[in-house]
């Protein structure tokens, strides 16, 4: 389970970025990309089921712990192979490697998003997508 992003609602306000920084000693594990000046995509670790980062780590610093791919900094060698392994480019290094850790269960970005574009559970994501689809159908649109 990761933080689900509803890009339909993202208004590129950067609140998630700053909230993440406040929780993580000044570094952000979420990055915001503005596409063609018409939409925005917040991007963060997807807590993959078959994590590429974990597969390449030489020192077992990345470990699957329930819903999170946890990062144990005390085991990190600083090799940065995980950065190169991530197909989505959401592992970062500013001397120390960092990626989304779901804030130990209460993600700051989810709580702070002014438009609720970030959702913390799969259930909420499903409800959002399904109800939007239902309303669209109801109005007879594609």
């Amino acid at each position, binding site marked *: 389970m990761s933080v689900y992003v509803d890009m339909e*609602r993202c*208004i*590129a*306000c*950067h*609140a998630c*970025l*700053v*909230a993440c*920084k*406040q929780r993580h000693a*000044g570094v952000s594990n979420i990055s915001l990309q503005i596409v*063609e*000046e*018409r*939409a*925005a995509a917040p991007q963060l670790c997807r807590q993959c089921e078959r994590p590429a980062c974990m597969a390449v780590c030489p020192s077992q610093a990345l470990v699957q712990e329930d819903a999170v791919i946890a990062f144990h900094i005390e085991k990190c060698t600083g090799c940065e192979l995980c950065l190169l392994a991530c197909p989505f480019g959401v592992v970062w290094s500013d001397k120390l490697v960092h990626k989304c850790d779901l804030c130990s269960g209460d993600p700051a970005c989810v*709580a*702070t*998003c*002014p*438009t*609720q574009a970030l959702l913390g559970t799969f259930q909420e994501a499903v409800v959002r997508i399904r109800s*939007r689809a239902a*309303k669209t159908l109801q*109005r007879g649109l594609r």
Partner: protein
Amino acid sequence: MTQAKVAVICPYCGVGCGFYIKVEEGRATGIEYMPDHPTSRGSLCPKGNAALEALNHPGRLQHPLMRSGDGFLPISWEKALALAAEGLGGALRDYGPENVGFLASSKCTNEENYLFQKLARSLGSPNVDNCARLCHASTVVGLGRAIGACATTNPLDDLANSRCIFVIGSNFSENHSPVARYVIEAKEEGAIIIVADPRRTPTAWLADIFLQIRPGTDVALLNGMMHVIVEEGLVNHSFLKERTQGFAALAESLKEYTAKRAAEITCVPEGDIIRAARAYARSPASAIVYSMGVTQHVSGTDNVQALANLLLICGHIGRPGTGIFPLRGQNNVQGACDMGTLTEFYPGYRRPEDRRTTEVFGRAWGVDRLPNHCGLTSLEMMDSAREGRLRAMYIMGEDPINSDPHSEKTRLALDALDFLVVQDIFPTDTAQMADVVLPASAWAEKEGTFTSTERRVQWTNRAVFPPGQAREDLWIISEIAGRLGLGWKQCTAEQVLAEIKSLVPTYRAITREMLAREGFIWIHSIEGYYPSRRKGSPILHEEGFPTPDGLAIISPVHFRPPAEETSPEHPLILTTGRVGSHYNAGSMTMRSPSLLEIEPKLYVELHPADASARGIVDGETVVVQTARGEARAAARVSLRVAPGVVFLPFHFSGCNDLTLDVRDPLAKIPELKVAACQVRRG
């Protein structure tokens, strides 16, 4: 206690979000979200999230300062207050209260603002104003005249009930982010969203109909829309008959504003103007959301009147999902205006010329001759200072050097004063020009009320004490009042609120309990008229308008071009505005590392066509030049602007060196949104 969680209201914008500050050993260490806040529902924009970076910044003013040569010397409070009283008192004595000016702070609480204008007026000066002059003065005058009240008419979450939302000159996605949530909720229920803005902002992303309007042509657009509405028989005749006056004159004036003519003036395709007009008029409940893009023009008052005309001919007011939302900027600009820190209003929007006003306040304040006329607005105070008439100023929580247009004029003005006392939390550029600097308290270091843009009065608590020797503004104002012979006692915010309640009818019903719960949304009431069949409904104008005869006033306005047109020397239109990561003149956000990382410096947005015509590549340093001066900025080649238009965020020093100080004749607001410029490689 060593650890606590204190509820505060955000110091930044007018949405008035709540959050908790974690306090450990007397220090603010973190922020916690407030999920049950009625407007923000726990969310916070980036500025709110970074609020403690400014609060705890080491550069906070911690000592009273006295000018010494080019610099400052720290002095005691005793000495600083004595100097302030002497400086202001001397000017009052030698030049009269008409020549002393007071600039209040729309960041300060209602209690502080109330005392500030009480101070000014008790001393005989009618010259008290606040930064609303720069932002929503057009609303105060225009909407006040048209519908009798100059505030948002419905609560912000009511936008979710709209079937059509017309956004013009507002970028709420960046600058009032929680509003986007309600607009999106309406959109997801099928509401049509219309956005009129020269730039394709993240707010425009939500639009079903995007009207990329040429800066300064709002009246043409609105008249064009109204022309379509009248011609296609979409006006609400029963509403017009029962609740308005003046339609006939408007209908006549609209004849020349065909959609074709409007398209020519605004550069918006004719078809889009027609679609937008039909959508707004036909929907059962339409709302208008607007902000600086409408107000900061020489035709600002007319622009607002045109919006009022639009909603009145369709009857989209006084019901859920309708209304008009002038989104106020500052956390307490609505309150500062309610508290009468405007030269043309006493607290509660009472007119100084009305004999009853000076009687009521004179009795309450124990002062014989209160000023019974309008004084100087904030920019007029600067004019007067430059001309050698205004001799002293007391500026609280304002940085006019960076907020006012045409910075050079402001510098000359403040330089010309005999005496300037500035009360602030940071050594702003304005504070640097003062004779005496008084270190004040930030929002989390005081208690009192803020009134948000939806008229919600909320109590904010003290989380920590001010740093060093900084003191609360209530204390400072009272001390100065005492030394100027006004015999005031020191009082708590609660005591001041009690006085406010007794004098401002719309605040009369406030109780501490309701402030502690979800705040209190005031409803306009004037003697003899109390609105609302649903008692306590937060929607204004349900049954009548607080105008002399209860009817709204429709009045024709005509398109006038902006004050400064482009020329061969300055062929591009410069428009200014905000970005979400910074706030106004930047005294707080420019000291917040998290926010600076997002936008570190002044940039200029220009269209790829304009960039390539000048050989400018993205990122390079360029010079933006107007008839007032030059500023260096980083080029940002972007499709947000149309060809021929460039955008500068005004938070950074340098932007207002370029802007134009030509004002709306009624509201006295400067045309910050339009200037002519040239951009060249640096």
